[in-house]
């Protein structure tokens, strides 16, 4: 799979931009603020439907403008997929796949698998569990279209239940709460199931990726829930039971306190939690291994190679780690950004970004 063209309108620093990358390796060079990252961010947005910088959508809209539009066409085995996203400064964004609205936006993720490495990936290891849950959910949605659908249902069911609790607190109608408990439990158990399937797929890949980036320790996952989730069991009733048990407390605090949205996936190096590891360098290697593992799982399980985006990663890496990342580059499409040309391995097509255009 590869991106044939990308068109930006009022995105970040670009008034308009058309970019037609090579199907192989593309190296985007330019000083800070030259808009290289905005191009990678836009490509990633088409596959992940959010900014990989973790910024809110309105930050993508060029200052002084009302709407940003990101369009791109991907060449896949069975033809082409055109993804278009219109992002208003305020209000709902619009996603079109081949000119039609997808039933659920997250359906897009399985159609155009993209893996992005970027400096903020360190947060995957360092910060709270939210980013790691998103990492597992994204990978599940990229592997299995129905995973994206249940994630979207689960998010909405939890929001519906929370809104009911916020509006009514202790006065919430019991039958209506029962109904939302049931929806939360059904979707939640499915989200959990997909996360367990992803962990199984990652099990061998994550350790292997850690060695590939030059480390010797054993990198593994640990996963805990606050509602008794059981990887081997049936979880709808378990989650429904936990919700019922916590209902008085949830009614007081006006928020849903149990479920996969509170689960805690974490990484363990030789039996020690990676979060508490001493050096930032060690943590960065774990984050790197997480992305490498995601790439390898996607490449192995899907009939197509994901698109690989490397945003300014080489400046942070030593030679061993760089070799690990480079070993991924066989025949897939890669977009690399760097402020310094000499820092990037000398392969692929060179592009110069100057803040207005790229050539």
């Amino acid at each position, binding site marked *: 799979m590869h991106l044939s063209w990308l068109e930006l309108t009022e995105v970040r620093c670009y008034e308009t931009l058309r970019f037609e990358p090579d199907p192989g390796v593309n190296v985007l060079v330019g000083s800070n603020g030259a808009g290289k990252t905005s191009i990678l961010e836009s490509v990633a947005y088409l596959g992940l439907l959010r900014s990989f910088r973790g910024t809110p959508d309105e930050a993508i809209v060029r200052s002084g403008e009302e709407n940003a539009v990101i369009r791109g066409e991907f060449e896949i085995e069975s033809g082409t997929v055109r993804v278009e996203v219109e992002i208003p400064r305020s209000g709902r964004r619009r996603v079109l796949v081949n000119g039609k609205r997808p*039933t*659920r936006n997250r359906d897009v993720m399985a159609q155009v698998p993209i893996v992005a490495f970027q400096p903020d990936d360190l947060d995957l290891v360092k910060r709270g569990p939210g980013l790691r849950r998103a990492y597992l959910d994204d990978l599940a949605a990229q592997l299995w279209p129905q995973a994206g*659908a249940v994630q979207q249902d689960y998010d*909405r*069911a939890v929001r519906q239940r929370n809104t009911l609790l916020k509006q009514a607190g202790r006065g919430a109608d019991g*039958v209506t709460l029962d*109904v939302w408990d049931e*929806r939360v439990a059904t979707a939640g158990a499915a989200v959990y199931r997909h996360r367990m399937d992803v962990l199984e797929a990652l099990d061998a890949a994550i350790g292997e990726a850690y060695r590939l980036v030059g480390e010797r320790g054993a990198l593994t996952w640990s996963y805990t829930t606050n509602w008794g989730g059981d990887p081997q069991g049936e979880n709808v009733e378990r989650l429904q039971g936990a919700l019922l048990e916590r209902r008085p407390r949830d009614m007081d605090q006006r928020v849903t306190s149990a479920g996969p949205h509170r689960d805690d996936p974490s990484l363990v190096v030789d039996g020690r939690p990676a979060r508490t590891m001493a050096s930032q360098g060690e943590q960065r290697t774990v984050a790197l291994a997480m992305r490498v593992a995601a790439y390898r799982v996607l490449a192995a399980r899907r009939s197509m190679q994901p698109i690989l985006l490397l945003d300014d990663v080489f400046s942070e890496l030593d030679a061993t780690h760089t070799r690990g990342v480079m070993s991924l580059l066989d025949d897939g499409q890669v977009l690399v950004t760097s402020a310094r040309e000499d820092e990037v391995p000398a392969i692929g097509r060179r592009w110069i970004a100057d803040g207005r255009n790229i050539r």
Partner: protein
Amino acid sequence: MFEPPVQRLVDELARLPGIGRKSAQRLAFHLLNAEETDAVRLADAITSMRREVRLCTRCFNVTAEEECSICRDLRRDTSIVCVVERAQDIPVIEKTGEFSGRYHVLGGAISPIEGIGPDQLRARELLDRIDAENITEVIVAANPTLEGDATAMFLARMLKPLGVKVTRLASGLPVGGDLDYADEITLGRALSGRKEL
């Protein structure tokens, strides 16, 4: 801003679903430049629809009479009721030819985010119909969405204690959309393969 009479029309048009600021302006100027009779005919169609159409006192379908033509049709099976979110879903189900009972228009689906709970829907009115009309089965044809599923579950909780069989359209409908996303054949199959809740 345009001259007040034009601006007023633009503002009103922009309040319609699916019409943005730009489309509202285009429509307003289209009407301004069209033959006067065209504009008057449109205005008249809107006012007479509002004047002549009301809600069926039994099922809340739109009608020009006291009761809608379906409720008045003596050949229909009165023991079975199909619950839909909106009146415009009724012709969609009628087209399948698979349903011969009456309808009940709920007026939406349970969605706290949109401020819709059971009290904002015509659930109470449905409950009142059960005894009055000897209804034995309720088919919930709410949209195949999260909120539609929650609504079906709610109705099942409300009606099953009364001994009413509550069923939901079989899966196979395009999930997440409106009922009218489905073609007649798929919808007909979903009706005949309905499952008890």
